[in-house]
């Protein structure tokens, strides 16, 4: 097994592929089930998360088909309530929160640092099994009494009025929470302690800044969720009055506890997405990212501010006027760093050399959808307009633009971007692009009409509606079907590449971060020698090489100081 270290000015081409890589380095079920290799754990996460996404997507389809017409179509209201609850819970807890950090981050983060693995490989494997146990509890929920509380488990409905499997589901979420904490802890320590020589904090790739901010939130906010759910379980099983007024508790207390976690959780979902998009936009513009420091600092400031805004979910749940005033003000401050990021990405495109490859299409899609999601968030941060829009489809559309248009599109962009590195295969660029455009069109058609019906009064979580909202619901369902077609084509494209795809070069896109310096797919130990870190956005460091159909270190390039 050989790997050529990459001297900056060597005319010798680096090794592109290896016979022995992390995928075929050992065989058998146990070599995967007991692996400590961050790349294998990442791939196992990817498989699990993709299945969860498929399951959540089926629920979404059922919701949209049911709402195609007023009146009940093929399920009753109780079934509908279970379906929308499971859609939300599966998508949030099993897919979006672990999506980018645990699946993509696990594979990429140590590679970006030129490290052999994360700081605590066993903790990493433990986090995966906690995720699996949490998922198993959800499956148990599905096959026992289901769940109909909404993904938020609001009390006292969840503790005293539903006869569905709240305890199984909350126990599952509790485990998923610890899985998330372990991943965050691992990444935090890895980024602090395992950076390669030369990688100062200001040479950290922006993906790592994003993961760093995410890790802070995972570590500090998730325990609150764990405690809250334990209290909820105690109330349900032991009858201790905490949240149910009939037992002497206070239901609004639950909302405070829940959103103290779940608002940071929104940023646990979106920060990694922003991090992925920063990498993709720079790579496919072949240009240094614009305003590196502002993007990096905005990630950390979003992470810190996210702890102070939970009350904006409760403007109409009997919160005092003073509290609403404070929470509204802080909420606006968090809009600024998000806006700065969008402007920086835009400026990165300026005078770039923009290639519209599949990952870039997803990143541009993200920019547009996140912009709409962010701008419509203003209506919800403004106190007077939030009062009428709260708990309507306007909110549903807003957070789908941020979470699906934002996080999902960034996840898919990142998946296509690092797919050659993870699997060693190139996918069909044509069908990848068609899938991206189809998904983008379908998404907008599915969710834009929801803004209109929401501002006109249609409440969320309704199994049925009056005929005046029919047009919007029909457009939305049609869009969902188109989105589904796009995602199916995407799955086909990626799966086919595993069997028929071309071998991927070490650096197919011309990125300058370290993970592209090892062969595709990387060997078990990633790098023979710790690589030397330079400016991660010095794109001229690599140049196109016709023979390997990829980028190789440029001859005679001298890094420019910025």
């Amino acid at each position: 097994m050989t790997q050529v270290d990459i001297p900056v000015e060597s005319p010798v081409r680096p090794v592109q592929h290896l016979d022995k890589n992390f995928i075929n380095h050992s065989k058998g079920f146990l070599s995967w089930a007991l692996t400590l290799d961050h790349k294998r754990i990442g791939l196992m996460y990817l498989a699990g998360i993709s299945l969860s996404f498929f399951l959540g997507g089926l629920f979404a389809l059922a919701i949209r088909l049911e709402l195609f017409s007023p009146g009940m179509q093929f399920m009753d209201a109780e079934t509908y309530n279970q379906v929308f609850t499971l859609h939300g819970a599966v998508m949030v807890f099993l897919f979006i929160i672990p999506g980018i950090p645990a699946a993509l981050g696990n594979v990429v983060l140590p590679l970006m640092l030129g490290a052999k693995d994360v700081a605590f490989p066993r903790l990493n494997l433990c986090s995966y099994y906690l995720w699996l146990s949490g998922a198993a509890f959800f499956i148990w929920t599905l096959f026992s009494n289901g769940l109909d509380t909404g993904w938020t488990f609001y009390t006292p409905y969840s503790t005293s009025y539903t006869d569905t499997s709240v305890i199984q589901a909350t126990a599952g979420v509790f485990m998923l929470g610890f899985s998330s904490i372990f991943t965050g802890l691992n990444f935090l320590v890895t980024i602090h302690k395992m950076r390669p020589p030369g990688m100062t904090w200001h040479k950290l790739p922006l993906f790592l800044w994003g993961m760093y901010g995410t890790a802070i939130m995972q570590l500090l906010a998730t325990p609150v969720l764990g405690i809250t759910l334990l209290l909820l379980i105690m109330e349900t099983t032991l009858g201790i009055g905490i949240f149910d007024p009939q037992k002497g508790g206070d239901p609004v207390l639950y909302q405070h506890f829940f959103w103290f976690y779940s608002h940071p959780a929104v940023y646990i979902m979106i920060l990694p997405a922003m991090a992925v998009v920063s990498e993709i936009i720079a790579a496919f513009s072949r240009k240094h990212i614009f305003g590196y420091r502002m993007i990096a600092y905005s990630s950390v400031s979003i992470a810190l501010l996210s702890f102070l805004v939970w009350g904006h979910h409760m403007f109409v749940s009997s919160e005092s006027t003073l509290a609403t005033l404070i929470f509204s003000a802080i909420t606006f401050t968090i809009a600024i760093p998000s806006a700065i990021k969008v402007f920086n990405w835009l400026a990165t495109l300026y005078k770039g050399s923009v290639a519209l490859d599949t990952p870039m299409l997803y990143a541009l899609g993200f920019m547009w959808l996140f912009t709409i999601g962010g701008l419509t968030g203003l209506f919800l941060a403004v106190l007077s307009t939030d009062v009428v829009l709260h708990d309507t489809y306007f909110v549903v559309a807003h957070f789908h633009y941020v979470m699906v248009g934002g996080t999902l599109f960034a996840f898919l962009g990142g998946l296509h971007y690092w797919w050659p590195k993870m699997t060693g295969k190139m996918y069909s660029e044509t069908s990848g692009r068609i899938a991206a455009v189809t998904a983008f069109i379908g998404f907008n058609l599915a969710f834009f009409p929801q803004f209109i019906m929401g501002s006109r009064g249609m409440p969320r979580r309704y199994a049925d509606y009056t005929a005046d909202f029919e047009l919007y619901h029909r457009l939305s369902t049609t869009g969902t079907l188109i989105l589904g077609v796009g995602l199916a084509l995407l799955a086909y494209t990626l799966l086919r590449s595993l069997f028929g795809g071309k071998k991927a070069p070490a650096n197919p896109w011309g990125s300058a971060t370290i993970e592209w310096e090892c062969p595709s797919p990387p060997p078990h130990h990633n790098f023979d020698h710790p690589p030397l870190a330079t400016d991660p956005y010095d794109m001229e460091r690599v140049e196109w090489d016709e023979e390997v159909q990829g980028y190789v270190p440029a001859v005679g390039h001298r890094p420019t100081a910025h």
Partner: protein
Amino acid sequence: MKLQAFLLTTLLGLAGASAGLAQDDAAPAAADAPAAEAPAGESAPAAPATIRVVEDLDVDAVIAAFNAESGTDRTFTAEERSWIGAGVAPGDIDAAHQGYVAIPSTDPNVVIINRNGEELRVTSNASAGRAPVITHESSHMMPFAPEVDNGTFWMAKAASETAKDVDRMFDFIMWINYIFAAIIGGLMVLFCVKYRRRPGVRADQSITHNTPLEITWSIIPTILVAIMFWGGYVTFLDLRTPPPDSMKVNATAYRWGWNFQYPNGVESPQEFHVPENTPIEMVMTSTDTLHSFHLPAYRTKSDVLPNRYTKVWFNSGEPGVYRVYCTEYCGKDHSNMYAKLVVEPREDYEAWLTKTGNWMVDENGEMKPLLEIGELTYNRRGCKSCHSIDGSMGTGPTFAGLWGLKRDFDDGSSAVADEQYINQSIRDPYSQVVLNANGVSYGKQMTIYSPMLPVEQINGIIEFIKSLEGVPRKD
């Protein structure tokens, strides 16, 4: 589609059977009058409704399909065929003869009950939140929605000055949205086209940051959001601060309905009237889970919580009819938890209030028969969302055939369904939680009506359940 038709027919059957029963026993002399007249004061339409004809319904095909499915070879009389033509399933024809299935009429608010050959016209009880509108292409919900037919592209009709202030704020933010979306989207497309990758053309690596530009695009949004914050806060204070002379209406939310109480003690479930151009302050609480009082026409909303009082206020403005939604998820019938707000001239409002306060009394000032009170209570108080009267199992046990039945409780004890059993079930439901046919407990689902239901209404419910003795039940 068949399932849907079945559900609608069942629903109609409920309304029809209850109305028919009350009619039969309580007021045999007035067979033509609407039996379940809404307490809100809706009267029967002037022109008598006739049996509906669904235009694209092929009666022969429906009968053929029914015969093929049930393996029978049944023929139907001309009258029965006209019922099928109105949307009644062939399998329900026998029940329709008994008066348990209602026949849709040309007026969506009126159904026809044929009870042993005697035809009754029943005005839907719109105040109960579920008028049986049964055109097959529309929903079964409230027939009124005037506010959403007007208004702008984005918003429903604004019914008060405060609502218009909120709309101005909304429009201001929307313009900022348009401008920023146009700038960001436009530049994105422009850059992607103008700087697309071309052979031999390299990106300009000299642009990595520009501090004055970055400070500019941080400060401009900061100023804009500061304006938005302040504007939003000022209008929010208006939404939160009722004028001192406002009229108070109490609202109690329960699963799944609303009960409104006026200062003079009058109560009205599912519907409330207010005089025009009057500030109204709602003081609200819940008897069970969280609910939320959402009045989009006035751009106002507040969660309704157990053990707490929350307030919203609005200036009623011009006469109109508006929808109140529940916007905090509260379980099975969350999406049916509507109430109706009627804004009307003061004289009409006062007449309504008097009539509503006296809903248990007939025109001659006499107390209505207990059975009629019971049937009205059943429809007004939300009993019917959980307890069927056609024998089917709901969230709670059916009332059909309940009288005199031995009930098994989840603590192992049992009782016979008599007056005391029903009384205790209403006032203290969790002391005797009954098991269903499968031996599974119904659980603590029932709203505790103890302070809300006066003794006449409990007696009425008892009479109502008595009247359903012997109706076959399926649980």
